[in-house]
């Protein structure tokens, strides 16, 4: 049985494709986008994270940790996982509030599907289904294929939400099992893409072209981050590319929001777009209008 590393299974997802959906977030992503809404999904292994708002500073985690020295009596403050953490999970098990969490659970495809099936009545009612997201699904292709096959066998509609960064061969195989692609384009300018996401966009855009040849139901999603990818040149370049890909049915402009700032902090990583504010509805509409001039079906929001 295929198994994979799952970050979270989110039910009543209503912004990841049509209808009421269950989104399966996989762990691990090759990109490190500055604005990533789920930075805890980036690392391809398990991680201990501490949700500071739930921590009551009881110190149980330190008491049970085999790596860390016991704290001085009366020690307070939220504990971060020690650098030499062995991921034994003792602190997670001991934490009374659930503040200490293991990000990433190894699950078999059958386990995931059992969870996905729970909301089947709502998929049927709403035309929804499952969305495999990440992280980056292409990092766990065998697992993704197993999930998609099982969904297909059970009559559950499938969507894959991808950054497009990964093996083209795997992407095209996955395409055979996928009803809908949510395909992200972050930036068109190669240099900017590299600096803001940590990787080249060349493969991503080539993969999109290849996918567009074989798959007829692609929604391109662009997270609109003011000052980074909302310039006329960026929007026009994206629109010009998308216009040429026949499998693209619509473009969704997603408004950047800064709710992930505290997550970066929790992971001890810098949040490098803290000075950027969310685009106004007017900015969103302007960008959508601009792209519509290329004959695209552009929507704002999920």
């Amino acid at each position, binding site marked *: 049985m295929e198994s994979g590393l799952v970050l979270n299974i*989110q039910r009543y997802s209503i912004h990841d494709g049509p209808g009421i959906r269950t989104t399966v977030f996989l762990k691990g992503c090759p990109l490190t986008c500055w604005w990533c809404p789920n930075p805890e999904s980036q690392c391809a292994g398990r991680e201990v994270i501490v949700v500071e708002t739930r921590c009551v500073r009881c110190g149980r985690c330190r008491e049970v940790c085999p790596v860390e020295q016991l704290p001085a009596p009366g020690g307070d403050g939220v504990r971060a996982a020690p650098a030499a953490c062995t991921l034994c999970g003792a602190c997670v098990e001991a934490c009374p509030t659930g503040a200490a969490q293991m990000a990433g659970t190894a699950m078999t495809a059958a386990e995931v599907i059992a969870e996905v099936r729970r909301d089947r009545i709502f998929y049927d009612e709403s035309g929804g289904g499952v969305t495999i997201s990440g992280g980056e699904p292409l990092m766990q292709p065998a697992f993704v294929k197993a999930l998609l096959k099982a969904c297909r066998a059970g009559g559950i509609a499938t969507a894959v939400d991808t950054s497009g960064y990964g093996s083209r061969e795997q992407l095209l195989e996955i395409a055979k099992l996928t009803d809908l692609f949510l395909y992200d384009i972050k930036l068109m300018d190669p240099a900017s893409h590299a600096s803001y996401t940590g990787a080249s966009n060349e493969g991503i855009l080539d993969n999109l072209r290849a996918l567009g040849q074989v798959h007829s139901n692609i929604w391109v999603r662009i997270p609109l981050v003011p000052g980074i990818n909302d310039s006329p040149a960026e929007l026009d370049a994206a629109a010009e590319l998308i216009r040429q890909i026949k499998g693209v049915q619509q473009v969704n402009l997603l408004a950047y929001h800064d709710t992930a700032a505290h997550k970066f902090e929790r992971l001890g990583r810098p949040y490098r777009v803290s000075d950027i504010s969310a685009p106004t509805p007017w900015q969103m509409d302007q960008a959508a209008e601009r792209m519509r001039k290329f004959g695209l079906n552009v929507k704002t929001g999920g």
Partner: protein
Amino acid sequence: MTERTKRLRQESLDAAPVLTAERAVLMTEFYQANEGKYSVPVMRARSFMHLCRNKAIWLGDEELIVGERGPRPKVVPTYPELTCHSSEDLRILDTRPKTSYGVSDECIKAYEEKVIPYWRGRSMRDRIFPALPAQWLAAYEAGLFTEFMEQRAPGHTVLDDKIYRKGLLGFKRDIAESMASLDWLSDHDAHSKREQLAAMDISCDALILFARRHAELALDMAAEEKDPARKAELKRIADVCSHVPANAPRDFHEALQYYWFCHLAVITELNGWDAFSPGHLDQHLLGFYNKGIADGSLTPEAARELVEAFFVKFNNHPAPPKVGVTAAESGTYTDFANINIGGLLADGSDGSNEISHMLLDVVEDMHLLQPSNNVQLSAKSPDALLTAALKVIRKGYGLPSVFNADAVVQEQLRQGKTLADARAGGCSGCVETGAFGKEAYILTGYFNMPKVLELALHDGVDPRTGKQLGPRTGPAGSFASFDDLFAAFRKQMSHFIDVKMRGNHIIEHMYATMMPAPFLSVITDDCIKSGKDYNSGGARYNNSYIQFVGIGSLTDSLTAISKAAFDDKSVGLAELVAALDADFAGNEQLRQRLVNRMPKYGNDDDYADAIMVRAFEMLFDEVDGRPNGKGGCYRIEMLPTTVHVYFGSVTGAAADGRKARLPLSEGISPVQGADRKGPTAVVRSAGKMDHLKTGGALLNMKFTPSLLADQAGLEKLAHLVRGYFKMDGHHMQFNVVKAEALREAQAHPETHRDLIVRVAGYSDYFCDLSVELQEEIITRTEHAAF
């Protein structure tokens, strides 16, 4: 809203509820002068006639639908024959910070000089408590259950379509026929039936007289009126009130006015729970509407204005003030009149129509506290009906609530009603299912399940008082398994259900013999045919309900015990109970673990949900089908009104991590904040309960406005509702408001007086709620967009 409606609405909103001794004084005079002359039902009917003949009547500027229970809008009478307020009670009503009623010195004087000297010791409340067994009183005082009829009469009923086809003169003919066919030779009840029927006959005359007084007043006012348009309206009102309720209505206006007179009669004759309701108003009005449009006598605008005027009338009638525990279980001005929209026709086809949408528009436009409104959604109902309802819901007034019309039919079929009667039925009050116009479905009281678990963990002793209330089922340490504990819990439940029912039978008999409701009997099938009163089994169907409260809290507590004390053995049960007794003092880690690390109901977690189902099936087995004293059966319902706050206040800390005295979960909703997997998981958990075995189960969901801002959000919510109803879910209601907005209202009530939120089966002004209830509503999980 028309300009006229705006003014009438504003007047209704601005008027503060005030108490009047008018009814109390008239009743006292009548009883003093006539005590002992007549049989009980005739005495009741004649006293009703006395009220209809002598009470001050009101016809306000610009009104179209007329008639008030008090001398003017928002003035509330009292019912000393049911509850005789003391001067102290009246002063408290005048000065209490929440849901107060203005009480004048004259009112207190009238009470001290006339009302109290006669009714003290004669009122139902004064006679009921001494008649109840000590065991009942001890359990009642401990907060194991409440009792609806200790200060208000049996009610909870709804009218069907009969008045739209027949005037009271027609009902009088039916009464005469029934009287003529009495079997004086072999029916030993013939005399009591004759008295009952004579009382019904008098009550018809009384209401006809009451309407004629309005007709005369309207004519007098028309004679004085300078404005020709208003003069014509007053003449029209006089014409309407001369025709109905004596005769069947001829048009839309008369149909509404006839219902309103019946409404006033029911809520004046006695102070029944949940006032009274018109039922499927859209279905009842459609024929009159179509006829008026076709013959040119009515325009859609005029019809709508009449409906608006009708709505204002409901809002003019705050609930009569409650006292004691009952004020805590239902602390609100709302009197639970509830209009059904949509539903099914007698032939099983979709019952929604043009008027359904008009009613929803009026609800949205006027957003009044009363009347409540609900949409009866069948699989056959068009999506347009649900979408229209959700568009009103997203405004955040908590209205309308949404019911599963197909489940409502099935619930009634299971109870043995005919298909036609079940389809003509619907929901009233909060979420209660009934056969409209044919059933006395009496709610007898709320039942505190988490408190019973507390007793089961303390060998039948109430830890709050140290009193042995229940049977000795063994101390916590004596249970070797979860099954042992559950058996003890069941034994305690069974015991207190028996205690409650014994009390019910006494109170039921007292109402049957001492406090009949002749007018309500006229309009409830088959009271005329059987010659029996609504309160003594005259209705076609007679179900009595016990409403169980706190299934979420109970489930999470049992689940935590099962998991921590018996599966994982991470804490012994005796040790756990000791921590509860100390309200978790020095044991916060344990409490946190119980709150955060245990399976919880509301997350589609099979472990917790199986325990919920086990508890639910147990109480169903203990209650359903047991006979009441009126030829009907006991049934269960799962709803709380506001009693989960009171019940929490008498219940100690619990194994779900709830600290002592805090509110319990409400309805069948999860414990506040325990549902962490989103709305589909909540609905799936709730759907594992077999709702068809209940007469109503209340599920509250809270959404932020952003989730419903666009069409796609609305559609997805519609799918959520449809999915739940496919699982036989009974009811769903929504609070669409942000927690910040509620906090803001809490801080500045003066500028948020109009903020209406869904509480539990009804909506209420947020600022009128107790601080505890406000906190509780804020804590309910807010389902934000993901």
